Protein backbone atom coordinates (compact mmCIF):
# COMPACT_ATOMS: atom_id res chain seq x y z
CA UNK A 1 0.00 0.00 0.00
CA UNK A 2 2.89 2.36 0.67
CA UNK A 3 4.29 1.79 -2.78
CA UNK A 4 1.59 3.75 -4.56
CA UNK A 5 2.03 7.06 -2.71
CA UNK A 6 5.79 6.73 -3.16
CA UNK A 7 5.35 6.21 -6.86
CA UNK A 8 3.04 9.21 -7.05
CA UNK A 9 5.55 11.39 -5.26
CA UNK A 10 8.17 10.45 -7.83
CA UNK A 11 5.84 11.24 -10.72
CA UNK A 12 4.63 14.54 -9.22
CA UNK A 13 7.30 15.75 -6.80
CA UNK A 14 6.18 18.32 -4.26
CA UNK A 15 7.30 21.90 -4.47
CA UNK A 16 9.28 23.42 -1.64
CA UNK A 17 6.17 25.35 -0.59
CA UNK A 18 4.07 22.19 -0.48
CA UNK A 19 6.71 20.43 1.59
CA UNK A 20 6.81 23.39 3.96
CA UNK A 21 3.02 23.44 4.30
CA UNK A 22 2.93 19.68 4.89
CA UNK A 23 5.58 19.94 7.58
CA UNK A 24 3.87 22.90 9.22
CA UNK A 25 0.52 21.09 9.27
CA UNK A 26 2.14 18.02 10.71
CA UNK A 27 3.80 20.07 13.43
CA UNK A 28 0.44 21.50 14.51
CA UNK A 29 -1.15 18.04 14.42
CA UNK A 30 1.53 16.70 16.72
CA UNK A 31 1.20 19.70 19.03
CA UNK A 32 -2.58 19.23 19.08
CA UNK A 33 -2.18 15.69 20.40
CA UNK A 34 0.06 16.94 23.19
CA UNK A 35 -2.38 19.77 23.86
CA UNK A 36 -5.22 17.28 24.31
CA UNK A 37 -3.45 15.95 27.38
CA UNK A 38 -3.34 19.39 29.00
CA UNK A 39 -6.73 18.78 30.57
CA UNK A 40 -5.73 15.47 32.12
CA UNK A 41 -6.15 11.89 30.92
CA UNK A 42 -8.37 11.57 27.88
CA UNK A 43 -11.31 9.22 28.50
CA UNK A 44 -11.58 6.28 26.15
CA UNK A 45 -13.59 6.94 23.03
CA UNK A 46 -12.90 10.66 23.09
CA UNK A 47 -10.60 12.41 20.69
CA UNK A 48 -9.42 15.65 22.22
CA UNK A 49 -7.07 18.19 20.72
CA UNK A 50 -5.99 21.60 21.90
CA UNK A 51 -3.57 23.78 20.03
CA UNK A 52 -2.36 27.26 19.18
CA UNK A 53 -3.37 27.92 15.58
CA UNK A 54 -1.58 31.26 15.42
CA UNK A 55 -0.57 34.03 17.81
CA UNK A 56 -4.15 35.01 18.62
CA UNK A 57 -6.17 31.87 17.95
CA UNK A 58 -6.54 28.79 20.12
CA UNK A 59 -8.59 25.76 19.19
CA UNK A 60 -10.16 23.04 21.31
CA UNK A 61 -11.56 20.12 19.33
CA UNK A 62 -13.45 17.13 20.73
CA UNK A 63 -15.08 14.14 19.11
CA UNK A 64 -17.06 11.50 20.95
CA UNK A 65 -19.93 9.06 20.57
CA UNK A 66 -23.02 9.11 22.77
CA UNK A 67 -24.88 6.07 24.15
CA UNK A 68 -26.68 5.57 20.84
CA UNK A 69 -23.41 5.52 18.93
CA UNK A 70 -24.02 8.90 17.35
CA UNK A 71 -20.84 10.84 16.59
CA UNK A 72 -20.51 14.32 18.08
CA UNK A 73 -17.97 16.93 17.15
CA UNK A 74 -17.40 20.18 18.96
CA UNK A 75 -14.82 22.69 17.88
CA UNK A 76 -14.30 25.73 20.03
CA UNK A 77 -12.24 28.55 18.60
CA UNK A 78 -10.90 31.19 20.96
CA UNK A 79 -9.94 34.55 19.50
CA UNK A 80 -7.72 36.73 21.64
CA UNK A 81 -8.18 40.38 20.84
CA UNK A 82 -6.89 43.44 22.66
CA UNK A 83 -10.38 44.25 23.88
CA UNK A 84 -11.23 40.79 25.12
CA UNK A 85 -11.32 37.05 24.50
CA UNK A 86 -14.13 35.57 22.44
CA UNK A 87 -15.16 32.06 21.55
CA UNK A 88 -17.21 30.51 18.80
CA UNK A 89 -18.42 26.92 18.93
CA UNK A 90 -19.25 25.03 15.75
CA UNK A 91 -19.60 28.25 13.76
CA UNK A 92 -22.07 29.79 16.19
CA UNK A 93 -21.79 33.56 16.80
CA UNK A 94 -18.93 34.81 18.90
CA UNK A 95 -19.50 35.30 22.60
CA UNK A 96 -17.22 36.77 25.25
CA UNK A 97 -15.53 34.53 27.78
CA UNK A 98 -16.23 34.99 31.44
CA UNK A 99 -13.21 35.92 33.50
CA UNK A 100 -13.15 32.41 34.98
CA UNK A 101 -13.23 30.72 31.58
CA UNK A 102 -10.52 33.06 30.31
CA UNK A 103 -8.40 32.17 33.33
CA UNK A 104 -8.87 28.48 32.54
CA UNK A 105 -7.90 29.06 28.93
CA UNK A 106 -4.78 30.92 30.00
CA UNK A 107 -3.81 28.12 32.36
CA UNK A 108 -4.32 25.57 29.57
CA UNK A 109 -2.30 27.65 27.10
CA UNK A 110 0.52 28.05 29.60
CA UNK A 111 0.62 24.31 30.25
CA UNK A 112 0.50 23.64 26.51
CA UNK A 113 3.47 25.94 26.00
CA UNK A 114 5.44 24.13 28.70
CA UNK A 115 4.66 20.70 27.24
CA UNK A 116 5.52 21.68 23.66
CA UNK A 117 8.73 23.40 24.79
CA UNK A 118 9.70 20.29 26.72
CA UNK A 119 9.35 18.26 23.54
CA UNK A 120 10.99 20.68 21.14
CA UNK A 121 13.79 22.44 22.99
CA UNK A 122 15.97 19.33 23.40
CA UNK A 123 15.69 18.76 19.67
CA UNK A 124 16.81 22.23 18.67
CA UNK A 125 20.48 23.03 18.76
CA UNK A 126 21.20 26.39 20.33
CA UNK A 127 17.54 27.19 21.04
Amino acid at each position, binding site marked *: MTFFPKLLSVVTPKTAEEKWNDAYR*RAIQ*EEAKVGGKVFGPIPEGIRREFFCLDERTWVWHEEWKDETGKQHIRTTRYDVRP*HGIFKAQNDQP*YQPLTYQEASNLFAAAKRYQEMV*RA*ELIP*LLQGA
Partner: protein
Amino acid sequence: MNKIFNIFGKSNIELFPQGSNEDIISRLRLNKIAIGVDDLSRALNAMGKEDPAKTLQNVKAAEAFQGAVRFIQDGERKATVAGALARAEVVPVPAMSNAIPKNAPQSSAPESTIQPQPVPAEITTEANLTEAQANVAAALLKAEQKK
Protein backbone atom coordinates in the same frame (compact mmCIF):
# COMPACT_ATOMS: atom_id res chain seq x y z
CA MET B 1 11.27 13.32 7.12
CA ASN B 2 8.19 11.69 8.64
CA LYS B 3 10.40 9.76 11.00
CA ILE B 4 12.28 12.84 12.08
CA PHE B 5 9.25 15.03 12.49
CA ASN B 6 7.05 12.58 14.35
CA ILE B 7 8.63 13.94 17.49
CA PHE B 8 6.01 13.65 20.13
CA GLY B 9 5.37 9.96 19.86
CA LYS B 10 9.00 8.97 20.33
CA SER B 11 11.26 9.21 23.33
CA ASN B 12 14.66 9.55 21.66
CA ILE B 13 14.83 11.36 18.40
CA GLU B 14 17.71 12.76 16.42
CA LEU B 15 18.14 16.54 16.36
CA PHE B 16 16.60 18.52 13.57
CA PRO B 17 19.31 19.57 11.13
CA GLN B 18 19.78 23.32 11.38
CA GLY B 19 18.05 25.17 8.56
CA SER B 20 15.76 22.26 7.75
CA ASN B 21 12.00 22.83 7.49
CA GLU B 22 11.51 21.03 10.78
CA ASP B 23 14.09 23.14 12.55
CA ILE B 24 12.68 26.43 11.24
CA ILE B 25 9.07 25.42 11.81
CA SER B 26 9.79 24.30 15.35
CA ARG B 27 11.39 27.64 16.18
CA LEU B 28 8.56 29.48 14.46
CA ARG B 29 5.94 27.52 16.39
CA LEU B 30 7.65 28.10 19.73
CA ASN B 31 7.75 31.80 18.94
CA LYS B 32 4.08 31.94 17.93
CA ILE B 33 3.03 30.05 21.05
CA ALA B 34 5.07 32.37 23.27
CA ILE B 35 3.46 35.44 21.68
CA GLY B 36 0.05 33.78 21.95
CA VAL B 37 0.46 33.10 25.67
CA ASP B 38 1.65 36.69 26.26
CA ASP B 39 -1.32 38.13 24.36
CA LEU B 40 -3.66 35.89 26.29
CA SER B 41 -2.16 37.08 29.55
CA ARG B 42 -2.57 40.73 28.52
CA ALA B 43 -6.18 40.18 27.42
CA LEU B 44 -6.95 38.43 30.69
CA ASN B 45 -5.52 41.31 32.68
CA ALA B 46 -7.54 43.78 30.63
CA MET B 47 -10.70 41.75 31.24
CA GLY B 48 -10.31 42.11 34.97
CA LYS B 49 -10.65 45.85 34.62
CA GLU B 50 -13.53 45.98 32.16
CA ASP B 51 -17.22 46.53 32.88
CA PRO B 52 -19.89 44.21 31.38
CA ALA B 53 -21.48 46.92 29.21
CA LYS B 54 -18.20 47.53 27.44
CA THR B 55 -17.72 43.81 26.96
CA LEU B 56 -21.08 43.62 25.19
CA GLN B 57 -20.07 46.49 22.94
CA ASN B 58 -16.87 44.66 22.13
CA VAL B 59 -18.81 41.55 21.15
CA LYS B 60 -20.72 43.59 18.61
CA ALA B 61 -17.47 44.99 17.28
CA ALA B 62 -15.98 41.50 17.07
CA GLU B 63 -19.03 40.17 15.23
CA ALA B 64 -18.92 43.07 12.80
CA PHE B 65 -15.24 42.44 12.25
CA GLN B 66 -15.86 38.75 11.64
CA GLY B 67 -18.64 39.66 9.22
CA ALA B 68 -16.27 41.91 7.34
CA VAL B 69 -13.61 39.23 7.18
CA ARG B 70 -16.10 36.69 5.87
CA PHE B 71 -17.30 39.26 3.36
CA ILE B 72 -13.80 39.74 2.10
CA GLN B 73 -12.64 36.15 2.23
CA ASP B 74 -15.35 33.76 1.18
CA GLY B 75 -16.66 35.43 -1.91
CA GLU B 76 -20.30 35.04 -0.90
CA ARG B 77 -20.65 38.76 -0.79
CA LYS B 78 -24.36 39.24 -1.22
CA ALA B 79 -25.38 36.59 1.27
CA THR B 80 -22.94 37.74 3.92
CA VAL B 81 -23.69 41.44 3.62
CA ALA B 82 -27.42 40.84 3.50
CA GLY B 83 -27.12 38.59 6.54
CA ALA B 84 -25.06 41.11 8.45
CA LEU B 85 -27.43 43.93 7.63
CA ALA B 86 -30.48 41.81 8.43
CA ARG B 87 -29.06 41.14 11.85
CA ALA B 88 -28.56 44.86 12.24
CA GLU B 89 -32.21 45.46 11.19
CA VAL B 90 -31.40 48.04 8.55
CA VAL B 91 -32.49 48.11 4.95
CA PRO B 92 -29.99 46.29 2.74
CA VAL B 93 -28.31 48.39 0.09
CA PRO B 94 -27.62 47.00 -3.38
CA ALA B 95 -24.30 45.24 -3.72
CA MET B 96 -21.81 47.67 -5.16
CA SER B 97 -21.07 45.45 -8.13
CA ASN B 98 -24.77 45.49 -9.08
CA ALA B 99 -25.36 49.12 -8.34
CA ILE B 100 -22.79 50.42 -10.78
CA PRO B 101 -23.26 49.33 -14.41
CA LYS B 102 -19.93 48.25 -15.85
CA ASN B 103 -20.00 50.61 -18.84
CA ALA B 104 -21.77 53.52 -17.22
CA PRO B 105 -19.98 56.85 -17.00
CA GLN B 106 -18.69 57.52 -13.53
CA SER B 107 -21.13 60.39 -12.93
CA SER B 108 -24.23 58.24 -13.57
CA ALA B 109 -23.43 55.67 -10.91
CA PRO B 110 -26.02 55.77 -8.12
CA GLU B 111 -24.74 56.90 -4.79
CA SER B 112 -24.31 54.21 -2.22
CA THR B 113 -26.24 54.65 0.99
CA ILE B 114 -23.14 53.47 2.81
CA GLN B 115 -21.05 56.55 3.42
CA PRO B 116 -17.34 56.15 4.03
CA GLN B 117 -16.70 56.20 7.72
CA PRO B 118 -13.57 56.82 9.70
CA VAL B 119 -12.24 53.38 10.38
CA PRO B 120 -11.51 52.42 13.98
CA ALA B 121 -7.77 52.18 14.41
CA GLU B 122 -7.85 48.67 15.80
CA ILE B 123 -9.51 47.24 12.71
CA THR B 124 -7.12 48.79 10.22
CA THR B 125 -3.98 48.15 12.17
CA GLU B 126 -4.79 44.64 13.34
CA ALA B 127 -6.01 43.12 10.14
CA ASN B 128 -4.03 45.17 7.63
CA LEU B 129 -7.19 45.77 5.65
CA THR B 130 -7.13 47.68 2.42
CA GLU B 131 -9.07 50.93 2.37
CA ALA B 132 -12.03 49.32 0.58
CA GLN B 133 -12.06 46.40 2.98
CA ALA B 134 -11.78 48.75 5.91
CA ASN B 135 -14.79 50.72 4.65
CA VAL B 136 -16.85 47.55 4.56
CA ALA B 137 -15.72 46.70 8.08
CA ALA B 138 -16.59 50.19 9.28
CA ALA B 139 -20.03 50.06 7.64
CA LEU B 140 -20.78 46.71 9.23
CA LEU B 141 -19.52 47.94 12.57
CA LYS B 142 -21.78 50.99 12.34
CA ALA B 143 -24.74 48.83 11.38
CA GLU B 144 -24.09 46.55 14.35
CA GLN B 145 -23.84 49.51 16.69
CA LYS B 146 -27.22 50.79 15.51
CA LYS B 147 -28.79 47.51 16.49
